[in-house]
């Protein structure tokens, strides 16, 4: 495993992979190769260079379809990231499928990008209501509340994250789908997979969901590229494009236009070609390591982290203890010390963590009752000595801010 940035910064202990992961050499080299030797626009030219770029771009789509076990590559829409993918559904699908009297349902643990699109869609449409499923005291989705809200509102959509970027909780998606099938079978389910795709195997067909959104940059790929997967029949029959431009039309007349087939219909404008190709390398990188290896590495680190954390009575964890239902993402606070100060002191120890609300203000305010936390998160390259450095930095925090 070669991550050039980490190799160059040997002293850096990067514990912010939930924000974005570093990029392996394969990905960096692949993007460089594209711009150096292969650059051309796609679906345009009949000259070799363009044909080749188109082929690489479409191969990326195929490999990503395999990666999430989609039925066909026509179900893979390239976007600029999770936010863009969710907003695509938030406009295009909402437009033709949500009407007066309908309800949109999400949860208290959502990232703003899987919360605001539904909140605002409900406001844009007349008399559409917006409901939020609660969490249990153990920071997990309250399945009883979910069942009650599904039953009561028969929502058009339930939008839920696969893994919480603040708590690290893995949601039981198959169980959620089973509940939905039982009490509100017409509800569509959208999964925010931003934190999941680099940590656990995702099989969209096995999960039984309708939409799945994720970002390249959180799975060792480049920024500015992401994916929306949706069932083909949903994309063809119930969604119209909402971004118009080149590459997405069949024919244009003064009075109206008709649309290209999937997936181009949703990819108006020149796409992020290098991004898609770089993402393909990231997928190959992950597949080469394999999820069983990724998970055993991660759970070894989680156990190690908790073993150390246990000896600090003044650190509060906001999330599940060690468990198969969590990943290596931990929100922590120290009473009397602001998360900014903790992050600053850690930074001076070359330990990079995130401090803030992590784009989950509802969760912070209504569930955790804190304004901010520090967040420690692991990636494929995280080592025990990164965790050691973190706790060494924490010693400095307690030296400067002694617990009272």
């Amino acid at each position, binding site marked *: 495993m070669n991550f050039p940035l980490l190799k160059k910064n040997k002293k850096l202990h990067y514990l912010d992979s939930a924000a974005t992961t570093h990029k392996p050499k394969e990905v960096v080299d692949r993007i460089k190769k594209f711009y150096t030797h292969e650059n051309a626009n796609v679906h345009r030219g009949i000259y070799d260079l363009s044909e080749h770029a188109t082929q690489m771009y479409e191969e990326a789509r195929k490999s990503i379809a395999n990666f999430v076990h989609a039925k066909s590559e026509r179900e893979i829409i390239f976007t600029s990231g999770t936010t863009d993918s969710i907003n695509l559904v938030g406009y295009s699908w909402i437009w033709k499928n949500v009407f007066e009297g309908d309800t949109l349902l999400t949860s208290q643990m959502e990232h703003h990008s899987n919360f605001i699109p539904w909140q605002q869609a409900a406001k844009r449409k007349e008399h559409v209501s917006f409901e939020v499923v609660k969490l249990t005291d153990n920071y997990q989705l309250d399945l009883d509340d979910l069942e009650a809200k599904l039953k009561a509102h028969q929502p058009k959509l339930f939008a839920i994250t696969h893994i919480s970027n603040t708590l690290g909780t893995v949601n039981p998606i198959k169980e959620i789908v089973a509940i939905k099938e039982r009490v509100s079978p017409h509800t569509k389910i959208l999964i925010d997979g931003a934190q999941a795709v680099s940590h656990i195997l995702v099989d969209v067909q096995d999960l039984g969901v309708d939409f799945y959104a994720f970002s390249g940059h959180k799975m060792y790929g480049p920024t500015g590229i992401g994916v929306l997967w949706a069932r083909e029949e949903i994309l063809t029959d119930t969604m119209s494009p909402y971004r118009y431009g080149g590459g997405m039309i069949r024919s244009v007349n003064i009075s109206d236009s008709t649309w290209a087939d999937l997936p181009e219909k949703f990819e108006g404008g020149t796409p992020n070609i290098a991004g898609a190709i770089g993402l393909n390398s990231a997928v190959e990188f992950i597949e080469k390591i394999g999820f069983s290896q990724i998970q055993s590495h991660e759970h070894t680190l989680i156990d190690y982290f908790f073993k150390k954390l246990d000896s600090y009575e003044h650190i509060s964890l906001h999330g599940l203890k060690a468990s198969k239902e969590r990943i290596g993402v931990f929100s922590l606070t120290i009473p009397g010390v602001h998360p*900014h100060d903790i992050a600053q002191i850690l930074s001076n*120890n070359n330990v990079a963590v995130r401090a803030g609300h992590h784009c989950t203000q509802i969760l912070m305010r209504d569930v955790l009752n804190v304004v901010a936390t520090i967040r420690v998160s692991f990636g494929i390259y995280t080592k025990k000595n990164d965790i050691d450095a973190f706790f060494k930095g924490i010693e400095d925090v307690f030296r*400067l801010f002694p617990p009272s």
Partner: protein
Amino acid sequence: MYLDYFHRHSSMDQIYRQQILDHYQNPQNFGALENATHSATLENLSCGDKITIHTCIENDQISDISFEGEGCAICIASASLLTEEVLSKSTDTVANMTYDSIQDYLGITLSPSRIKCAHLALLTLQEALK
């Protein structure tokens, strides 16, 4: 490179030197102000720091000042120091103050995201005077 950038800032023990920790743990002029003529509240959206400044202006001079709020050590210490610094200054002087003056009396160089914490109290005071 990342580390070059990093080392332009003050070291941890400079940033958290005793004076700053003291102002954080025992902030000066903290609380409400009965005779306040001007007040304002500002928040640092990215991190939740929140400062309210109350001040009493007499003859275009700051005759009394206090602050309330929550925040990190840098934010609170900088607010506390500010209230000491501006007492009896003219409103014009305060309106023209920039981050440079804060940096002077804090005596540390901060990274861009921490500058927001240190700057908040002055911006709040200037807002109150508008």
